[in-house]
């Protein structure tokens, strides 16, 4: 796109406004609600073994496709029996859906955060380089344009089929299409900052490029990248669900909200619990992360509201 508005962040001198921005961030209702929900889900995931769950990969063919509320007795490792209620029912292999959803929080959220961090990190690096080194700029940007032209889902599908489906493959498959967007963002920030008088002054004084980057450019990228990161996180969780739906996601032994739904989709009419519970959790998580991003964007830079 040719119309690229100048990031408003570039117009504000970096250091001065930090403290009040932080307070502003914390006071924004979207940020608060979003952050609380995300934290809640993350804690659930982290504390999974302690929340009345059983092994999410344990199959039990006799108890398959039971509706929520079914009880059965479990023999523990020490031989004692106890009663266990399948709060969310069981899936097509008899695995406890509640346990899978709770453990799934770990994987789904981890995927989201990993993809966000990786894509922002890699994009930042590449963006800084292209913003500064002219002759690489042309080549890399053509390459990024090409990468962005390929629809993300198709690129992800292609990348996953390159190797065994697994956590790493899926993460890479989602990161790669997101990187060009970040690169463009960072590059535009770098390009505009480069024209600033204080930067020119710094260059004249002989400041080495790395110091320039760290001291002047980097702080201006934090806010927009934070916002971009949250949206990437939300989008990654959704893409993982779609990849599972298409049959090329993470294998079902490691539960994610996406693959629990994908496995249960053909039983939707009789056993909707397979889709309902993970679906609700997934929607909440993505919703919360989107709200977080919204709030961050509104507070960190009101002028960002103009751009998506």
């Amino acid at each position, binding site marked *: 796109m040719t119309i690229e508005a100048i990031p408003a962040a570039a117009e504000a001198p970096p250091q001065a406004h930090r403290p009040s921005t932080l307070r502003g961030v914390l006071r924004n209702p979207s940020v608060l609600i979003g952050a609380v929900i995300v934290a809640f889900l993350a804690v659930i995931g982290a504390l999974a073994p302690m929340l009345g769950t059983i092994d999410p990969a344990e199959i039990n063919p006799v108890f398959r496709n039971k509706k929520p509320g079914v009880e059965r007795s479990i023999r523990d490792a020490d031989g004692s029996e106890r009663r266990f209620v399948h709060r969310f029912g069981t899936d097509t292999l008899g695995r406890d859906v509640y346990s899978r959803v709770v453990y799934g929080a770990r994987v789904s959220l981890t995927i989201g955060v990993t993809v966000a961090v990786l894509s922002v990190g890699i994009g930042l690096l590449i963006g800084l380089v292209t913003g500064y080194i002219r002759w690489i700029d042309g080549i890399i940007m053509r390459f990024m344009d090409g990468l962005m032209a390929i629809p993300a889902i198709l690129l992800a599908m292609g990348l996953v*089929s390159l190797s065994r489906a697994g956590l790493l493959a899926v993460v890479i498959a989602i990161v790669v299409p997101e990187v060009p967007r970040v690169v463009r963002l960072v590059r535009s920030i770098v390009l505009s900052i480069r024209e600033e008088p204080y930067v020119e002054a710094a260059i004249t004084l002989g400041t080495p490029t790395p110091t320039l980057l760290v001291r002047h450019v980097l702080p201006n990228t934090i806010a927009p990248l934070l916002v971009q990161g949250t949206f990437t996180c939300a989008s990654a969780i959704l893409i993982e*669900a779609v990849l599972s739906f*298409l049959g090329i996601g993470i294998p079902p032994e490691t539960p994610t909200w996406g693959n629990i739904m994908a496995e249960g*989709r053909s039983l*939707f*009419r009789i056993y909707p619990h397979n889709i309902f519970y993970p679906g609700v959790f997934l929607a909440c998580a993505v919703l919360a992360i989107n709200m977080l991003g919204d709030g961050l964007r509104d507070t960190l830079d009101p002028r960002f*509201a*103009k751009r*998506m």
Partner: protein
Amino acid sequence: MFGYILRRLVATIPVMGVVAVLVFLMLRLTPTDPAAIIAGDNANSEQVAEIRKRLGLDQPIHTQFVIWANKTLHGDFGESFFFKKQVAELIGDRLEPTLSLAVMTITLAVLIAVPLGVLAAYRHGGWLDRIVMGFSVLGFSVPVFVIGYALIYVFAIELAWLPVQGYQRISLGIGGWLQRLILPAVTLSVIYVALIARITRTSVLEVMNEDYIRTARAKGQTERKVLVRHALANAAVPIVTVVGLGVALLIGGVVVTESVYTIPGLGRLTVDAVLARDYPTIQAVILLFSLSYVLINLVVDLTYTFFDPRIRY
């Protein structure tokens, strides 16, 4: 303007070149050997080698690429490894359903979302505004297939107002075509309604605070004229940008929607082709989608001149 268009068109060439190389490499790097799949269960290694040769897979990669690129530029997309048809024919068959779905979806989305967004901006802070914002965030938080199944359950199964699945060609009757497209289009448009409504609301809101709006009101313009002629027109640029982005993102949603509703379009073709390691088809489809993405962006950029006379190329 003409020069601009020309320059942009020329600029697409290196981009498409990059796409072509990327896609080609990506496929050739997969560990599965399509020759083995084609050869079948009981083939021995000689038969596999022979098929390799026939498909030209035994040549060095750069030779394969040159041959393929040359053929593609001449319009020969080759024959599918698996479906016994020319790739061009396969794609041709599937174009209508996907285009129908895409056009219906975007039309629906724009028709619903823009007025919604304008209204929300107009009644900024009111309950309508909150509802629109709330639902829009929900709209892009739920995976497309979940929305699809829910809609099918309510409208096709419980209420039985609409068919469960399938696609009917326009040539067999518009009524049937329309009837079968409603649920899929609605399913897919949820995300776009959400996105477009939000951006419309935000842009219009911004614009509403501008001086020229105050002037228009002071001049005695009706609110409707203020909204449409002044606010919306000026907010149009970001809205159109998002619509353009949306069209590009549409492809991801199309793949899922076509799978849920059994629409024989390009999305499903791609999924089938990827699962079957059908290189010629995958390459052709990705090239096609990438090209349309690039061209749509060009069209979007050109429409800016229509909305904002300050923008000149």
